[in-house]
């Protein structure tokens, strides 16, 4: 090493990419990633076949496949997102990370995008579903693509919520359970049973506004081939509000 200590201020991008790479690779350092990918695929496909009756419907389309994605993300995004900050607190590495030349925001962005990419890779592995539908029939490819885009955005929204849960605790289990419950509520909003409950308490107009906040209500247009501004903005808002809020929680430490 040199005689004169020199420690140049790193480029801001270096820290972001280093964190992103570490976090993404981190999923694959434990069996968690493989369990996750297997569970996601098993459920995504069996829900579509056995509950969505995608095969019996006799239509070459994936809308019955995407129908269950909010449920899957509500469960699996908190599972993947639980470690974001809780694990840093438990291991004591938060003190290390935040005394390295990286801002909390760079670290938070790196972590968030790594987790989102991981969820995206789970989604990519379901592509044989799409190929099968294309092989069996003549689906509208644009509709399938928009369905995948919508599902990916929906995953980001659930991850935003999971990030807040993870920033609040040092226990991954608590982070997972609270994240799951919060996402679960957003899944329920827009389902029949829940609607009846709301109708008892609020005026029709209000109920309709609340329904707009549900995950499925926002994913549905994507599964019909529409990439609308409003649902896109909804998913991105939830995702980045979650990212921002979790970062502020960590910054206050």
């Amino acid at each position: 090493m040199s005689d004169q200590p020199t420690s140049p201020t790193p480029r801001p991008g270096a820290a972001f990419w280093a964190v992103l790479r570490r976090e993404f690779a981190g999923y694959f350092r434990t069996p968690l990633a493989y369990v996750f990918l297997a569970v996601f695929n098993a459920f995504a496909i069996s829900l579509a076949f056995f509950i969505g009756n995608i095969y019996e419907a006799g239509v070459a389309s994936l809308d019955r496949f995407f129908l269950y994605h909010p449920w899957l993300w509500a469960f699996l995004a908190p599972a993947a997102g639980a470690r974001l900050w809780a694990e840093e607190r438990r291991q004591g590495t938060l003190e290390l990370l935040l005394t390295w030349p990286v801002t909390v925001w760079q670290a938070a962005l790196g972590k968030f995008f790594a987790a989102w990419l991981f969820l995206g890779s789970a989604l990519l592995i379901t592509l044989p579903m799409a190929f099968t539908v294309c092989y069996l029939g003549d689906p509208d490819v644009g509709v399938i693509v928009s369905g995948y885009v919508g599902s990916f955005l929906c995953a980001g929204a659930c991850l935003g919520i999971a990030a807040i849960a993870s920033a609040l605790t040092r226990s991954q289990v608590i982070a997972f359970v609270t994240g799951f419950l919060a996402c679960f509520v957003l899944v329920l909003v827009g389902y029949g049973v829940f609607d009846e409950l709301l109708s008892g308490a609020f005026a029709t107009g209000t109920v309709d506004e609340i329904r707009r906040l549900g995950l499925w209500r926002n994913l549905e247009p994507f599964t019909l081939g529409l990439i609308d501004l409003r649902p896109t903005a909804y998913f991105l808002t939830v995702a980045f509000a979650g990212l921002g809020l979790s970062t502020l929680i960590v910054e206050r430490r």
Partner: protein
Amino acid sequence: MALIEVSQLQKSYGAIRAVKNVSFSVDRGEVVGFLGPNGAGKSTTMKLLTGYLRPDAGTAVVAGFDVVENPVAAKAHLGYSPEGAPAYGEMTVREFLRFAAELRGLADPAQRVADTLKLCRLEEVAGQSVDTLSKGYRMRVGFAQAVIHDPAVLILDEPTDGLDPNQKFEVRRILKDMAARKAVIVSTHILEEIDELCTRVIVIAQGEVRCDESKERFLQRGADLNQVFRKLTA
């Protein structure tokens, strides 16, 4: 200008005033032993100095950069090993150091990692995950990440805690080798460590500096260092 300048630093946790009014400075070539009872404010002062915690009042300047105003630049010149030497347990030693080097944006990270593994005598466990290491190796991993960028300022919170005599000797040896070019702060409970390692002593008790003097003067306070310590921190 000194490499570390701490001026009237204050920090409270709720009603507890952990650091009341701490000022000192450390020049290049100095190894300052930070002494004090548990809960005296040593670790809090280090957390403030490294930018992990924000002070309620006062300033901390590292290598000319204020840690609150210009945290990234200050941290680039700073190596810090927190108490217990935390590290990402699921990574191997080499992966962990590589991550530290890349995050710091060092040129030729692979070479830096190799040099640091050698310096800290970690080569034989480089491929092992941190979780599987013995305490002695873990502490050295914590030390390795703190020196990988050859920082001007080195802050170590109880770096020899829980080590056996041979391991302690090893850490002190590495530290002495590099101390001449750096400003170093080492907190410790081991009073004998002062004579072997430090050039200066700062005693902190109840959030205040009780004594700040050269090692030689400190050692002249009495033959029984335990008694000297008790008197100063009472």
